[in-house]
């Protein structure tokens, strides 16, 4: 057995055990910690499969951002968790749930294993057309040139998720500031981190967005880092999220997807199909769309974590 396959085997065993731990953990918080560890292990697995773009997204969104959202949810549930435990579903229902999950997992495993060798792939066709688009990163090309509709819907769906979170606000504070006001010692360690890290993080976030054209990276990963820096400032009491009734905020939240839609429909006139790009302008238009989506995604992801409005706009 080679070193690489031994490492892969260890990784698979670790992944499966952490996944099992996440399912059987009794406490919600323990399950969330398991889920975050699982996501980080999964991104190592993606790196091992040379899918660095997927690994970055998994670490930033799948594990990081989702992890923070789940930690927040588990903290909210903690008060009611003990009261809810007698209402656990019975053995029959849990058994049926386990059976259904095992059947789905088994079905997916069977279909992956039954793929012909080598599996059918469009990768050579994508690689062949890379020069005509002008970008070096095949993943970005697939996401924005060949599967543009998926990326467009993704960028809209996160805004919808934010509207869902905002809708949980009581009428009294509708339009107000998200989340409780954070206070931290202005000379404390958190405030220090909140001052030192954001300048570095903002450069790293913009860099990851910018190299996404030719190397692994892109708007989602970059926007998550920028959102994390803003959230760090909020947690350290140095910054505050804007009230959700601000007009500039709402314009920025829809600007990215709207521009994407506009360029997509313009493609119908200039390139003969919706979401197609005219010859020679593909790279420019893709970067314009990504740049427009960056503020939308950064705001959406940060405000998703900041939570529903809890303070009135007047303070």
């Amino acid at each position: 057995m080679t070193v690489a396959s031994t490492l892969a085997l260890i990784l698979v065993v670790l992944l499966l055990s952490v996944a099992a731990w996440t399912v059987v953990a009794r406490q919600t918080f323990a399950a969330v910690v398991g889920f975050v560890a699982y996501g980080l292990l999964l991104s190592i697995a993606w790196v091992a499969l040379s899918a660095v773009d997927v690994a970055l997204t998994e670490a930033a969104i799948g594990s990081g951002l989702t992890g923070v959202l789940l930690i927040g949810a588990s903290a909210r549930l903690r008060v009611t968790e003990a009261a809810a435990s007698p209402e656990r579903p019975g053995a029959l229902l849990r058994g049926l749930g386990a059976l259904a999950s095992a059947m789905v997992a088994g079905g997916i495993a069977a279909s992956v294993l039954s793929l012909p060798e080598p599996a059918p792939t469009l990768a050579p066709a994508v690689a062949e057309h890379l020069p005509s688009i002008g970008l070096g990163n095949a993943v970005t090309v697939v996401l924005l040139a060949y599967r543009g509709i998926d990326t467009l819907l993704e960028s809209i769906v996160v805004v919808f998720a934010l509207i869902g979170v905002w809708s949980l606000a009581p009428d009294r504070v509708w339009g107000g500031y998200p989340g409780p006001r954070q206070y931290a010692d202005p000379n404390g360690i958190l405030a220090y981190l909140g001052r030192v890290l954001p300048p570095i993080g903002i450069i790293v976030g913009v860099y990851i967005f910018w190299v996404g054209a030719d190397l692994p990276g892109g708007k989602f990963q970059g926007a998550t880092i920028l959102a994390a820096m803003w959230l760090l400032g909020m947690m350290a009491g140095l910054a505050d999220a804007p009230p959700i009734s601000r007009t500039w905020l709402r314009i920025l939240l829809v600007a990215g997807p709207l521009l994407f839609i506009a360029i997509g429909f313009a493609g119908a006139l200039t390139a003969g199909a919706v979401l197609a790009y005219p010859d020679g302008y593909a790279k420019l238009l893709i970067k314009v769309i990504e740049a427009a989506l960056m503020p939308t995604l950064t705001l959406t992801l940060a405000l998703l974590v900041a939570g529903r409005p809890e303070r009135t706009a007047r303070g």
Partner: protein
Amino acid sequence: MSFLLDVLTVAAISAGLFFFLAGSIGLLRFPDALSRLHALTKADNVGLGLVMLGLLPRADGLLAALKLVFVWLLVLLASSMVSQLVARVARRGGSPS
């Protein structure tokens, strides 16, 4: 020269792995939150530093080497800050017992 660099890589990464192992054992075996933090930060600071040192001769180009050093410095910053915050919660008698 390249042989010496290989020796440096193997020695530094082995030493780094030893610190990670010792840190993990400490995390599992030490009695209270503060000493567990102490064990954990040794793995982060010294262990990762040694692994980074071992990888330096293998980096292609100065820029990649600088990125490695930068990653280590960022982890140093994050781990020292986070351990301070966790220690503060632990001293107040919070949950990480």
